[in-house]
């Protein structure tokens, strides 16, 4: 086993969420972040004077840590940072800051606001319209988001994958969201509905892409020894990692057989006492459905190109969703495709809720261990294993 002295040493003791919607009704990202943060701090049974670390994901349009400190009146913090999205970068930074002694208790927040380039309604908002990209790029690019459609074409070419494989990712998410009061997209979805959805970047359609939303998630993290004084069974970070390969430019990635997800899986497996057979709930990121298929294959639930067949074999007809071995649900909160584009914070929050036993209609009985694969293929691959002590 690899060196992992931080295993189980940092706990998540508070969570708060605003819930997610296509339009928060004129509330700013900062207002949403404040609401989620206050909920999380209160959920932990703490107050502003207990927070000495502040980590906020650098989401476009979201508030900076110093703005949040001012808004929440935090008396003093000795660590603050704004890691790049997606969510596990910030989780890892908060974890390391606590374990290293930079601070004891971190408020970790993620605030999302629809922006003019991914939401037509946001483009009508005179305030949001001021957030622009700078240079309007040419269409002939596979930078950032478009890269997933481009590599989906390669995946389909190499493995002869039918659209239904992608569709099952979308259907599974929608089935979960139906039971999640925080979710933005709850209307039932059928395979016919998926196959009939508008193409955006073919081969990916509207329902292969996460839903731009307004909303915020927040977490409070502290040392596990302090958490034990607050609760009998704290939820701890057993292992967390990020992963990157050298050639990660989107169109130069050597192949689907070797990218950031593979580094994450190797690192996580080496750091963890727990692996697939120990898991009670699985959170593969779904900013794009192709990413989810990648996580299934790269974690080793199935072989390369086999995720579509795996989802079919482990499909629970009664509930219209995936149940691995009839036991392990996948993104039961609805994921980014249906809860909303939380860039992974929703996956972490749902993992904590499941491990606490607070997930109501979605609850996995007796859940103790959760596996999270966050981010995609290029420069934001990450993973975490959370457990209840």
């Amino acid at each position, binding site marked *: 086993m690899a060196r992992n002295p931080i295993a189980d040493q940092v706990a998540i003791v508070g969570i708060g969420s605003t819930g997610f919607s296509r339009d928060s009704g004129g509330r700013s990202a900062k207002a949403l972040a404040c609401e989620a943060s206050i909920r999380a701090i209160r959920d932990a049974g703490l107050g502003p004077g207990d927070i000495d670390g502040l980590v906020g994901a650098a989401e476009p349009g979201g508030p900076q840590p110093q703005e949040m400190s001012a808004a929440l009146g935090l008396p003093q913090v000795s660590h603050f940072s704004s890691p790049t999205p997606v969510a596990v970068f910030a989780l890892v930074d908060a974890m390391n800051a606590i374990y290293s002694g930079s601070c004891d208790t971190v408020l970790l927040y993620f605030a999302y606001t629809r922006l003019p380039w991914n939401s037509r309604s946001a483009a009508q908002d005179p305030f949001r319209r001021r957030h622009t990209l*700078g*240079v*309007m*790029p*040419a*269409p*002939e*690019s*596979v930078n950032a988001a*478009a890269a997933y*459609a*481009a*590599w*989906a*074409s*390669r995946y389909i*070419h190499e493995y002869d994958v039918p659209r239904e494989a992608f569709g099952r990712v979308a259907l599974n998410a929608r089935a979960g969201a139906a039971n999640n009061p925080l979710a933005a997209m709850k209307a039932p979805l059928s395979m016919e509905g998926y196959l009939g959805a*508008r*193409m*955006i*970047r*073919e*081969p*990916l359609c509207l329902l292969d892409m996460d839903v731009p939303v307004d909303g915020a998630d927040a977490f409070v993290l502290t040392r596990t020894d302090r958490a034990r004084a607050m609760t009998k069974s704290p939820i701890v970070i057993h292992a967390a990692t990020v992963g990157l390969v*050298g*050639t990660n*430019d989107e*169109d*130069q990635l*050597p192949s689907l057989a070797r990218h950031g997800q593979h580094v994450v899986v190797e690192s996580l497996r080496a750091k963890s006492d727990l692996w697939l057979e120990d898991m009670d709930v699985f959170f593969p990121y779904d900013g794009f459905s192709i990413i989810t298929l990648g996580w299934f294959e790269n974690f080793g639930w199935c072989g390369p190109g086999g995720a579509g067949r795996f989802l079919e074999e482990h499909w629970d007809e009664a509930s219209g969703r995936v149940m691995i071995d009839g036991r392990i649900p996948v993104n039961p909160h609805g994921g980014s495709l249906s809860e909303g584009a939380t860039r992974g914070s929703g996956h972490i929050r749902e993992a904590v809720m499941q491990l606490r036993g607070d997930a109501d209609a979605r609850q996995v009985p007796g859940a103790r261990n959760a596996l999270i694969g966050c981010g995609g293929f290029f420069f934001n691959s990450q993973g975490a294993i959370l457990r209840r002590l």
Partner: protein
Amino acid sequence: MTLTEIPSDAELVERFPYASIDHDNKALYRGWLEKSLRMNRCDDCQRFHHPPKPVCPSCWCSSLVPSEVSGRGTIHLAMFLHQGPPAPGVDYAKAPHPVVTVELEEQEGLRFTSTVAGCAPEEVRIGALVELDWVDRLGAPFPVFRLVEKS
């Protein structure tokens, strides 16, 4: 080397309003103005890389020569935009706009991304052979691919 300073950096930025140009990739766009697709090649190990970087990722040599490539290759990735950023000559309502990443014949894994001009979207397939051509975009040359007829 003085040739690469024409036009000026300021003019270069004006000619390509849709590009993010910097000191690492300016030679690429100066090449476009001469209808030449150039990629950084290491003067030491002779490896190409793209997009342009300040050092050779293979050997850390910083003597890099923007070198013309043929533009011939094989379609490696192919997507079709049904909506996207506005561009002259691109009408998403009329037909989906193909965007392809082509693996160039010069070196395994060396790729360039553009569109395929002069054919129907359904003719654009992964594995198809293409060659380079130039079209006008906003008054400056823009590199595109064309399908090579199979004999």
